[in-house]
């Protein structure tokens, strides 16, 4: 085993780079490669014959492919492990089967109904399951497969029970006889797979897809961007089930006979294995998984035991050696660009200094209740009183530094203000609106942005996708009306991320360093155009130059009328940047005043700097 990790790592690195390069070519775009590849399949059918074994094999791959693309939506994008895609597959197959055998419906009516039934099935299951953790969801979805099988047997009036349903022919019109054309099924399946592939891609680049990925990678960071993890779980689960049921419907037409034996839990496991092997969350990896796990057993069909053993060993090998699957790249392109890049990339942002007059005017005219008012908030963890009746406030245009020894409650203030932990006592008022009882997501939507002590970014998403997710939250009626893109660009550059380099912007943040992530996170917070900005130890781990840049940008943002709270340990930075300082100790406000008076305050010296001096 000793040489393995190094080898596996190099292999993994190489595969990832390769997929990054492919994604950068025009061929990497689904609208370019998908029609090409699927068109070639039609040629293959013509060469091999539409009723040949080769065609049958391709159709099997495509039908499983549709189901695994569907499964990739909740399991890959959403990280919601489902052992139940086979249940949706069965539901779709039986919908088509029953409508065809019992009612003589044509395929263009049965398949949409199957997809619809699949969506409803997914919603009914996903609504409670979306509240569960990973294990809970796995067990519930496994249970769903078992009860679906039992229900198929129990409802034998419709489903034919254990004997099953047949013949399921492709009927082209109500009252018509099943078609004898050998071409209809291959064309139908291939066209469906093409549409499914493009739809799957559309879901990935949609707000839902990106939100699901963000929740998968870093749930708390996603909440800080105003994303509802529950909603994206339920939606992705529902969509995935729709894909699964449609694929099941096609399967019924291909098999012409269905019985419960075809839909055991092993099918669900196989579908999940295809997704993981190919690359969960990647755009075409799951299809690759379907190709491999359909062809491999065929190639080994002659060796009965070996075949199954290799399948089991593959499951173990993939999670041991390459847990992200063969195609590990999960980032997807973003259309929307940062402003001020087209006209003059060199000095555009330099010219966009804040307009002091307008901003200063806005700050001056702000009412007495403008900004954040925290009044007597308390919060305990078990027996520990982390915050004990803390009051503080910050006005638009002001930078408030929050300092204090470790464990004094600085971060807890931020967590309580942003709604991550509810306050047990006291009130929090933002621009005269009481936000004490609001959910974290709602508070974000009101224009409160924050960063974390360790950046909570999303390793599987590209830099551009991060900025996209931050932007869409721009709430209406902001105090700061300015377009902050120039500052976003400056922050990125400070972190060593060139916003005009498409390859850099397309890079997954899992590949970035600490400083880059820290500036990216602050840039995201700004992009969401906040009226209150909470920075939790932004300078930790930064170089002197980076720190100076950060200081300058923060000052400028405040001058635009943003209220800023900075939790910081670098006292020199605090002294230069802050308008006011609040010192916390053991959950209480120990001292409050101007930064230049800080060093003279006896109480602060004793508590914070230690010793009686």
């Amino acid at each position: 085993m000793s040489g393995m990790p190094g080898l596996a790592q190099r292999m993994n690195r190489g595969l990832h780079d390769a997929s990054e390069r492919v994604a950068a070519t025009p061929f990497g775009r689904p609208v370019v490669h998908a029609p090409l590849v699927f068109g070639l399949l039609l040629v293959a059918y013509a060469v091999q014959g539409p009723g040949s074994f080769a065609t049958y094999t391709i159709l099997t791959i495509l039908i499983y492919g549709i189901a695994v693309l569907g499964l990739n939506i909740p399991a890959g994008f959403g990280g919601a492990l489902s052992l139940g895609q086979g249940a949706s597959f069965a539901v779709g197959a039986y919908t088509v089967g029953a409508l065809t055998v019992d009612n003589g419906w044509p395929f263009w009516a049965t398949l949409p109904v199957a997809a619809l039934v699949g969506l409803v099935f997914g919603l009914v299951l996903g609504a409670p399951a979306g509240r569960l953790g990973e294990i809970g969801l796995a067990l519930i979805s496994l249970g769903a497969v078992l009860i679906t099988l039992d229900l198929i047997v129990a409802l034998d009036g419709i489903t034919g029970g254990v004997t099953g349903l047949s013949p399921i022919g492709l009927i082209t019109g109500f009252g018509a006889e099943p078609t004898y054309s050998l071409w209809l099924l291959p064309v139908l399946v291939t066209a469906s797979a093409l549409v499914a592939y493009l739809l799957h891609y559309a879901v990935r680049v949609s707000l839902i897809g990106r939100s699901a990925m963000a929740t998968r990678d870093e749930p708390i960071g996603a909440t800080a961007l105003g994303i509802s993890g529950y909603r994206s779980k339920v939606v992705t689960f529902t969509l995935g089930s729709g894909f699964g049921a449609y694929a099941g419907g096609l399967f019924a037409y291909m098999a012409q006979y269905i019985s419960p034996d075809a839909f055991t839990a092993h099918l669900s496991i196989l579908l999940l294995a295809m997704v993981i092997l190919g690359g969960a969350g990647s755009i075409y990896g799951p299809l690759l998984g379907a190709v491999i796990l359909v062809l491999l057993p065929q190639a080994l069909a002659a060796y009965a035991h070996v075949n199954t053993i290799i399948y089991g060993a593959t499951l173990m090998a993939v999670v041991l050696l390459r847990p992200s699957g063969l195609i590990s790249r999960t980032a997807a392109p973003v259309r929307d660009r940062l402003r001020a890049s087209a006209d003059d990339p060199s000095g555009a942002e330099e010219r966009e200094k804040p307009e002091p007059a307008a901003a200063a005017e806005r700050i001056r005219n702000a009412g007495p209740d403008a900004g954040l008012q925290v009044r007597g908030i308390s919060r305990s963890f078990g027996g520990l009183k982390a915050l004990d009746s803390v009051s503080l406030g910050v006005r638009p245009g002001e930078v408030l530094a929050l300092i204090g020894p470790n464990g004094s409650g600085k971060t807890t203030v931020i967590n309580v203000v942003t709604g991550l932990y509810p306050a047990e006592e006291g009130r929090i008022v933002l621009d005269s609106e009481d936000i004490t009882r609001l959910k974290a997501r709602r508070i974000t939507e009101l224009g409160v942005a924050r960063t974390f002590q360790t950046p909570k970014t999303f390793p599987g998403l590209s830099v551009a996708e991060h900025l996209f997710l931050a932007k869409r939250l721009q709430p209406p009626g902001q105090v700061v009306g300015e377009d902050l893109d120039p500052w976003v660009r400056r922050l990125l550059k400070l972190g060593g991320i060139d916003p005009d380099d498409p390859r850099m912007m397309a890079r997954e943040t899992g590949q970035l360093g600490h400083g880059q992530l820290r500036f990216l996170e602050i840039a995201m917070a700004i992009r969401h155009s906040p009226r209150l900005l909470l920075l939790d130890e932004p300078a930790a781990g930064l170089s002197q130059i980076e720190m100076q840049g950060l200081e300058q940008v923060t000052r400028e943002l405040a001058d635009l009328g943003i209220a800023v709270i900075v939790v910081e340990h670098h006292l020199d930075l605090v002294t230069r940047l802050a308008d006011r300082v609040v010192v916390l100790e053991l959950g209480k406000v120990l001292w409050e005043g101007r930064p230049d008076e800080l060093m003279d305050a006896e109480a602060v010296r004793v508590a914070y700097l230690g010793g009686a001096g």
Partner: protein
Amino acid sequence: MTDFINNVLIPGAAGGATAGLFALAFVVMYRTTGVLNFAHGQLVMLMPLGVLVVSDLWGLPVVLGLVVAVLVLAAVVLMEERVAIRPFVQSGHAMPWILSTLGFSVVLAELMAIPYRAQPVRFPWGISAKAHDLGGIQVSWAEIAIVVAFILLVAALTIFDRRTTTGLRLRAVAQDKDGAAAIGISPGAASRLSALIAGGIAAITGLLIVSTQLVSPELGLTFLFNGFVAAAVGGLDSLHGVIAGGFIVGIVGQTAATYMGGNYVQIAMFSVLLVVYLTRPHGLFGRASVRAV
């Protein structure tokens, strides 16, 4: 009333003990490793199959069969722990170990299918499942044995957990893998020991359930699922919780089977799981983890 006892209570208790024994093994593993072993069904069948191969196919004494089967089971458990569980101990992600233990179960089931060509076989040395009449109440030795064994095993493991240093060490790993490692308790050794204990539970479970089950490499996912439900009801990290979890699963399942029919057992199980997850996500006796940012 007698009907209820005979049709629901007694078979429900026996079924509950079966689910509870599965749950007990899951909990023992889960507490130290954070892994639920999807190959446990095969481990349960390995013991009786081993005895059958040695004593039925090869015609050697049953005692020898038991010894060989125990050794094979231990070896398989250690191998599984090394390749499919250890790499994912307390990793916080379920996807990898679900696939690795499922993969292991696929390989193991296929190997176990070789001696009898995948045919289910009767186990001739099991405890008698013949019902005896005790004043109108029908009960078999097999039913009594599995319920008693279940309760004794839970009691023994609870005492081991609370009263011995080794139990304390396992709990330390369960609470904080890195913290335990820092004070010299090896998470790897803890994982191995837990796997062996779970393997021991599998051996006992296997010898008990073959009174009513044929020996086959595919025990079926329903056993596994009922065990998961019992563990989730009691709390995935609670040893004594499996008593409540097991018997709730057994009685609810048997009630559904008796009054609605066999096809509704899993639906009843599923409902129990859903209700527990939505009302008490950590189970009746499980502890909620403290949220940390």
